């Protein structure tokens, strides 16, 4: 019923380029955004904002950052958390050392710093691929964590390397309440998703996929390989850097370099594997899964008789189920939840035929 396509034809090429070709899709997106910006702040409670919605949004953005690099451009990376850390610590320092700089400007500069670092560690990608590139990005992961811990300057000589959120003010409005932090996060994430979705469908997005699928043919067509790959690292780094700044300041409030360790990089990687490589929607699906799944398991555990399973066991159980799920996805559905959703939608079409 919902996916009735009858009578909706693209009459201009611009119609074909829309994110949602069908009216239902566009109305749905408008309704979702209205609800997210106006409804949720009124209806939600602090627990939902702080423990579920904010991390969900930030992880979706981080997923998008890695997905542009790995899912679209085909460059494997285990350095996501490093670029997030650079974004967070750079934003902190811009706020600290340039008083009066607007918060959003600091976040953008933080993202740009992460982009720069990502480009440096992406330089070897012209020569090396696959497994060896993973090693190079892994080096980024360890180097950044080491540098942030080793040089006190980055954390303004805090004894344990902890940085604390600057006042969360944009255009004179205060965003430090849980609902405010949610709105700030939502605004930034929505804007960057719009940008990312545009990029993925632009010439650059196609060039990324071309390099991913067949790089000799891409070169022969005139796609500059080095520039295309480095732009993937830069833009991915920017998105991850902004995600890192949000993670530190709208989600956690305080963070230390250890908060951006290798397991965080793996978490982002799992988001895009579960959600779907080379999919925009998949980042939301993967992030929702990563955030909700542990909650679901621990809620299930409370239904069991008391003492049946303790917290430590629960955590191990979580990890095991996760591992199995990742393997299942890799084998059964490499295109992730986004592909499952697409199949479901195709079944829901009514006209002219299901296919």
């Amino acid at each position, binding site marked *: 019923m919902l996916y009735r396509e009858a009578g909706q034809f693209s009459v201009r090429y*611009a119609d074909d380029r829309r994110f949602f070709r069908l009216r239902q899709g566009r109305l749905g997106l408008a309704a979702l955004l209205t609800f997210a910006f106006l409804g949720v702040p009124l209806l939600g409670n602090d627990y939902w904002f702080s423990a579920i919605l904010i991390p969900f949004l930030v992880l979706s953005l981080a997923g998008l950052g890695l997905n542009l690099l790995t899912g679209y451009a085909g460059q494997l990376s285990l350095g996501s958390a490093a670029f997030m850390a650079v974004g967070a610590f750079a934003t902190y320092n811009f706020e600290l050392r340039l008083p009066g700089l607007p918060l959003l400007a600091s976040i953008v500069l933080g993202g740009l710093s992460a982009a720069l670092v990502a480009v440096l560690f992406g330089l070897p990608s012209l020569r090396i691929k696959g497994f060896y590139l993973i090693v190079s990005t892994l080096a980024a992961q360890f180097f950044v964590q080491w540098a942030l811990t080793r040089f006190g300057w980055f954390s303004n000589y805090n004894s344990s390397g902890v940085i604390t959120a600057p006042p969360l003010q944009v255009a004179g409005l205060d965003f430090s309440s849980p609902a405010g932090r949610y709105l700030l996060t939502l605004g930034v994430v929505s804007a960057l998703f719009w940008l990312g979705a545009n990029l993925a469908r632009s*010439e650059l997005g196609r060039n990324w996929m*071309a390099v991913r699928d067949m790089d000799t043919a*891409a070169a*022969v*067509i*005139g796609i500059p390989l080095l520039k295309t790959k480095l732009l993937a690292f830069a833009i991915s780094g920017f998105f991850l850097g902004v995600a890192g700044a949000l993670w530190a300041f709208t989600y956690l409030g305080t963070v230390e370099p250890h908060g951006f360790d290798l397991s965080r990089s793996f978490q982002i990687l799992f988001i895009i594997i579960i959600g779907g490589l080379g999919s925009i929607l998949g980042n939301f699906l993967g992030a929702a899964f990563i955030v909700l799944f542990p909650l679901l398991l621990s809620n299930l555990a409370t239904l069991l008789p008391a003492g049946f399973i303790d917290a430590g066991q629960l955590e191990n159980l979580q990890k095991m189920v996760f591992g199995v799920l990742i393997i299942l996805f890799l084998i059964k559905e490499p295109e992730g939840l986004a592909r499952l959703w697409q199949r479901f939608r195709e079944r829901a079409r009514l006209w002219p035929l299901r296919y």
Partner: protein
Amino acid sequence: MSAAALLELQDISLSFKGVRAISDISFAVAEGEICALIGPNGAGKSSLLNVINGVYQPQQGLIRFAGRECRAMRPHDAALGGIARTFQNIALFKGMSVLDNVLTGRNLKRRAGWLEQALRLGRAPGEDDRQREAAEQVLAFLRIQPWRDAIVGRLPYGLQKRVELARALAAEPRLLLLDEPMAGMNAEEKAQMSRFILDINREFGTTVVLIEHDIGVVMSLSDHVVVLDYGRKVGDGPPDEVRRNPEVIAAYLGTRH
């Protein structure tokens, strides 16, 4: 040889780790002609195409294309100069749709920068329309519109060959290099592909260099045939003349193939 050569190779030699693949090959391709490269497997035909558009750098020789001379091409310069090609083993972007593959073939026609496109400012939207329009014309020309949105990796082999030709044609090339465009096709598909190649040559004046094993197709399609054997040139001329050349008969039309 006609005066207006679009492409001229002079004493090209190429070896891989000391093993000679091409030895001292010279020939010229006139503007607007269809030139066929023939010869047994391993003769060096594909390597020669790779030299022409810069995938391989020869150790020796000169390449002259459109009046400019160089020791070796580079793929990006070749594309800028108007050389497009297809590969012996299909080299499409398998995870992308037919339309996206064809659009990618036109990436050098883009003027708007990536940020302009991401923010959908300035030249970007109008240019998107023009690129799409041109891509649609190529899809129509090669009759593949019905598969516009299909993912290329899921199409049958014969269609993939046609999509690869579409991607090359989308660049509006001056010189089109086709490496065995009809390999693995049945007679009907071969006839259709020959028709497409002739149409491209006549309608757009595109110069074509193609590699083909089917001697019937070669004779009917080409204006000029170059015969290779063991990396050497053993024949060069109009099809009828080459067919009568005893060395060619011994090397190619003889027992080995």
